[in-house]
């Protein structure tokens, strides 16, 4: 088990218990029952439950001091937002947090023993998805560029450069596998504002930020550059994996790339 890029074995801990890892997150869609007709009317949106993964760690010990050091180390490893990868799926990571550790006695003996220690906790993945370990980077062009996705929608960050003069509009178009434009997002430099060739616009499709980043690294909120159209969601519903045909993105001008991770329900 790898936590934030570090093998847990290197700290002397062994993963001895794991559940829920291969159970997909529950996807729910609300429904409403209407009187006097059969069936229900589903809501137009669905939600994904969190995924919970109870884990158990064990470690051999040599002393009480060793035990304390081992526990401190484990707590350090499990602090904050975790990127967790398991050995049987090395290309996938799960974003999760860990619940507080619970230490269990290992032997039913009357004599106090420090030979080993077993610790349990639960990893909670609130977005229910797992992701590719390696992000995808695609250079965008004025012709459609394929964006292969997993089985769940992905966010992504578009960095868009190239000298951009005031009042000039550019579009980012998402097309489905059939080439039909699904979403067009228009970004326009307001009057009096522009982008030098060494600057770029960073568009976070998930968090819906539009940030100007200068060559000196100065970041400013430029949300008002987004002028029309819907925010683009990279949705696997637009691709046909079996036919290896994928949704595409294209820009109308400038140079851009998108960085994203494929997301999976399992």
């Amino acid at each position, binding site marked *: 088990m790898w936590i934030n890029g570090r093998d847990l074995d290197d700290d002397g801990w062994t993963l001895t218990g794991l559940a829920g890892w291969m159970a997909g997150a529950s996807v729910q869609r609300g429904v*409403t029952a209407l*009187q006097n007709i059969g069936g229900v009317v589903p*809501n137009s949106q669905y939600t994904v439950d969190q995924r919970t993964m109870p884990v158990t760690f064990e470690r051999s010990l040599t002393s009480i001091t060793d035990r304390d050091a081992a526990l401190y180390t484990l707590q350090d490893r499990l602090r904050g937002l975790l990127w967790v990868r398991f050995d049987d799926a090395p290309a996938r990571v799960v974003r999760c947090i860990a619940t507080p550790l619970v230490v269990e006695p290992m032997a039913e003996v009357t004599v106090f023993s420090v030979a080993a220690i077993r610790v349990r906790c639960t990893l909670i993945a609130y977005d229910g998805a797992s992701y590719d370990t390696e992000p995808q980077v695609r250079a965008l062009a004025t012709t459609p560029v394929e964006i292969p996705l997993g089985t769940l929608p992905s966010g992504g960050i578009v960095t868009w450069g190239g000298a951009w003069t005031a009042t000039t509009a550019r579009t980012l178009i998402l097309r489905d596998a059939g080439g039909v434009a699904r979403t067009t997002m228009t970004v326009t430099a307001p009057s009096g504002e522009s982008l030098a060739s060494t600057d770029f616009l960073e568009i976070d499709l998930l*968090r819906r*930020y539009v940030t100007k980043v200068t060559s000196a690294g100065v970041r400013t909120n430029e*949300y008002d550059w987004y002028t029309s159209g819907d925010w683009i969601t990279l949705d696997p519903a637009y691709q046909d994996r079996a036919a290896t045909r994928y949704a595409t993105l294209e820009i109308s001008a400038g140079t851009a790339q998108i960085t994203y991770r494929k997301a999976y329900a399992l």
Partner: protein
Amino acid sequence: MTTVELWSDWECNGGDALGSLTVIGGSYGFEVDGSDQCDLTIVPDTRTTPALRDVLRIVDGTGVVTEYRVQSIGRTLADGTRTIKGLSPLADLATLGLVRSVTGGVTTYAVGGTYTPADCVDDVILTNLAADGGSWLAAGTIDPTAAVNITAPSAGWTRLQWLRALEDATGAELRLRRNGGTSYLVDLVDRIGASGATVRIGRGQNLVNLSAAENDGELATAITVQGLTPEGETTPAMIGENAWTLGAIPGSAPYWIPLTDPDGGAAPVVFDDQFVGNYLLTKTATTVEITDSRASDSAVLVAATAGLTAGDLVQLVADASATRLTEVTVPNVRRLHRVDSAPTLRGERNLVLNGVFARGASDYAIADVTNSIDAGRYRRDTATTLSMTGGTGGVPSTNLVITAGPANAIIYKDEFLSVSSGSARVAATTQLSGSGTGTIVLTANATVANGTAITLSTNVAGGYGPTRIAAFPDDSQPADGHVVKCPIDVTTHAWPHSTSTHYAYAGLHSSTYTVKRIAGGIGEYVYAAAGVSVYNNQSAAEHGNQNGSSVITDTVSEVVTRRLPLLRIDKPSTTAILASVLAAQRVPAASTVHYELSTSALLSADTDIRVSFYPARAAISGALGIGTYLRWWMLWLGPEAVPVPCGDRPHANDLVARGNRGLLARQLTANNITVSMLDLARLTGHSVTRETLTLGAEVELVDLGVTARVMGLQCDVTNPQNTRVVIDSRPKRLVQFLAENV
């Protein structure tokens, strides 16, 4: 999917998009009464931090944009969320500032007068917008057209208070309509959502749950409307002094005669059999019983038409003795009486016709006035200078031929023109043609070469100076309203003015009205008032009444020679003077004095009355450069203290209309219905007209057999299908049924 963005201000007011908000719950809504608001719970984000007075911009799945001003922000420490409450743009109209007028450097908030609703919005409410940061507002659709009288209190009103008062007075409904990113338009419409489709709600379709409760809480079958209580009085205005125009009178029975509002407002009969058993009081103090009535054409049935003339004004009274009405009722139902308070609405009636001189056969003729002095109507915004070209052909003549002058300009009797031979006095009021030509008759020959430049004389020293006033008091009249410019009164008028000889002096005389006197009550006193302005163009001499020593005095009891204007109440049938009041304050040199004259007379029986007016006379020195303007006049039966002027409109008609609107609206029981339903239009993600709920439009509750109105819509931000509809089978505001039935 609904998205929520944070903006710095309304898009139409130059607002900038600041960022997207992560909303985890909440709703936004629309209400017929304009109290739209949103209530959102968001996950805070340091990049996009809402602040008070920012704008929330909500875009639903169909692309409709709704904006709210952030009014409050709450924080919950336990989960780190923020709750934001926003109000609709209409709320801004309460905080932009007070409606005001600035004249001569003085700001006044007690703005008011008689306006059409469109003029009220354009000329009163939507003024000073740039100064108050309200340039994003503009007038939209204004349905009602009948003039109303509205006056703000001395403390002033906000624009929202003015619009609410206009709503009350007209029975229309107020709504602010988003005009894309350009502006918000102020709509005052007969009915919000009138064009919306009627959506069917029922089991087996889209109904989730419905509950209904009925009560008589707001039923009414008789309403007393209490209006303005004039300062110093204790009794509020009521519907008694109403007046309606008689329609065509049939030549034979049955004598159905329509009654209409003289200003095009709501007619009085809104139920069949309403006012049956009441009477019509005519201008000759006769009463005619109403034996039947019908709402379709607001007509009453009378047994005979004696004393009734089409076009005359008649008053609805309770009985043959002319007891005044105090309530409007629904006929033939159980009595359930309510009181409606309308403290801004007046109730008095001006018994003289054309009290503010709005009407005339021509631009200077005065309708309904006996004018034996050749006075002429004068627009308040008339230029005080004249520039013309003309002549008498170079020979002595009293005919001054104008070849080039202002189109349709009026030159008044006793004005002095500066011509090459000096000052020429105008003998009769004359209007130039649309091309600025005409002939002005002079009192004496003048020799003027053709093509001479002609202006108003400025020969003040000789007493022939200009008599045109540049500005008049507001008088709650529009800037292009009229006053009457009078010539100089050259008759020797002794004082006091009380004999039959004085009665016969030439002056201005109003229409005649016969008061039906009720002993100890209405008609025992009659009151008259007039607004008068006098301009003295003498450079050094005052102008005023004289005592026995021919010295100017301001004390009326000392006056033996009248030189200032006079207002009288006459009894034409006996050529008697019932009361008179003389302007007393002298007019300083080169000055204007504005007067309000008032008097009253005690009547002992039914009496025919009229008001008469006499302008200022020549100065002691004989100078004729004295200009007299009669701005308005009125004759009324009480109370003694009323806001002046009351104009031409029978104000009690507004109270009658309000009462009738209330009766129409309150026939139905209060039926509070709560409906949970699926908004099927949003279910599909695009609009379906027959399923689209529209604020103010109707819904048909199939299972109840009731058609009700959508009074409010609450939309769930995170679940667009979860729309809560607030509907009511009775209008929330009592005036909402007006446009359909009155």
